[in-house]
């Protein structure tokens, strides 16, 4: 019944081309709002945020011929749900080889949902230094915020039901570029 995953229940809401266009637009928006690349840094949230950050870096390099410092942040140790879950999330580590003091840090993630991941990322960032400001890029904003967090740049706004699942698939990790919505699988 509800535990069967019917093929017709999965909807593709962004294909490879749509993703690419959205990211190109976002790259331009970042440059516009920050008036260029000075003091800009991209930090991707593990793991798909990292790939998106790398793509933005490449696009910005193509537009402005400048390479922006890009880093990886792992928010596992800052999550607020570790004691509740039976999972044991793997810690793969933060890799930021540059100082973030006084930088305009652009956090990058694939999906914005409750906002708790971003809250954790902000806490992690603060422990690393004092950025001038923090901005947020998400590929998909699916609503249902539980905390007062808002994105600065959005690839696509996607109204969803709470019991749906939004999955971003990327070439680097999943072999193809696609954003799909599916009903949540029964545990």
């Amino acid at each position: 019944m509800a535990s069967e995953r019917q093929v017709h229940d999965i909807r593709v809401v962004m294909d490879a081309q749509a993703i690419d266009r959205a990211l190109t637009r976002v790259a331009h928006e970042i440059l516009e709002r920050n008036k260029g690349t000075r003091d800009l840094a991209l930090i991707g949230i593990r793991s798909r945020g990292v790939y998106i950050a790398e793509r933005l870096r490449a696009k910005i390099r193509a537009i402005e011929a400048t390479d922006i410092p890009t880093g990886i942040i792992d928010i596992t140790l800052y999550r607020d749900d570790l004691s509740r879950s039976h999972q044991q999330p793997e810690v793969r580590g933060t890799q930021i080889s540059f100082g973030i003091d006084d930088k305009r840090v652009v956090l990058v993630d694939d999906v914005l949902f409750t906002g708790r991941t971003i809250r954790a990322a902000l806490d992690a960032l603060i422990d690393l230094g004092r950025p001038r400001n923090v901005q947020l890029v998400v590929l998909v904003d699916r609503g249902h915020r539980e905390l007062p967090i808002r994105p600065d740049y959005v690839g696509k706004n996607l109204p969803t039901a709470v019991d749906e699942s939004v999955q971003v698939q990327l070439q680097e990790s999943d072999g193809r570029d696609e954003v799909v919505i599916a009903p949540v699988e029964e545990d």
Partner: protein
Amino acid sequence: MPFAHRHLLGLEGLSRDELTFLLDTARSFTEISERDIKKVPTLRGKTVVSLFYEASTRTRASFEIAAKRMSADFVSLTSSTSSATKGETLLDTARNLAAMRPDAIILRHAAAGAPHFLAARLECPIINAGDGAHEHPTQALLDLLTIRERKRRLDGLTIAIVGDILHSRVARSNIFALNTLGASLRLIGPPTLLPPELRAWGETTTSLDEGVRDADVIMMLRIQLERQGKNFFPTVDEYSRYFCLTQRAVAHAKPDVMILHPGPMNRGVEIASDVADGPYSVIMDQVTNGIAVRMAVLYLLANRPKLEAESDTESAAVQDQVPAPAPRLRRRAG
């Protein structure tokens, strides 16, 4: 779940995947100790108790720093402060502590099997910080991490372990793990400290030069001077003549050999001063890695939900983009 054990009692019996997972997790914690703010909130509100029946400044301090960097509260009990001096048994001490609901107990004890004894009787996770001659898992993990950082792998390496293997818990933990991970071992010492059963764990030899020939790593074990009275070797002088790691002996190993020592060193007994202070020695790295390893172990063990009825089989796959599990969803009607 990559590491499904409630306790860390030893490295024997851990699979290759589990050991690799422990090392990988520890690796990702090294970064925290290099920052300005050397703290993450992960174990905030958790209480970690260390119960040390044997004196140890470094291991205890290392655990303490690790716990505090995870934002945990740390309570340290040593045998002089604990009620052991009043005749309280290990079991009663542990029961009293357990009633205070710690999130982990770190135990160091002179009796092999003491952590197992507690693990069988208490609810909370037990971390073995050294039980008699049996195991010292976090020490071995930090040794392995240090080696892996430098050599990029563990399997296929030739690793020489020199000294009192018979009485060494550090040696045992390292031997168990290295055999699982596919390293090739040489075990070196006087015959009195090399029982025949050791041959199942590696090549044994009484010749230091032969043992370290072409080795990638040399691990020196402490000689506990109190062994002298028991006829394992006649004098420290005689022991060091044959087994002290000098420049001359090191020359038989590979040119990029790494030298490890669990500390504290007996300079001139196990290891010549110029070797200890020389370029092959990685003793400072071991200390840093020790904290990372202990942070990782605390992270993996002290985070258990209290009400969990040990349903390790019930692990959902790690979901990258979902930070918090939503409340249990109802079936859709129809």
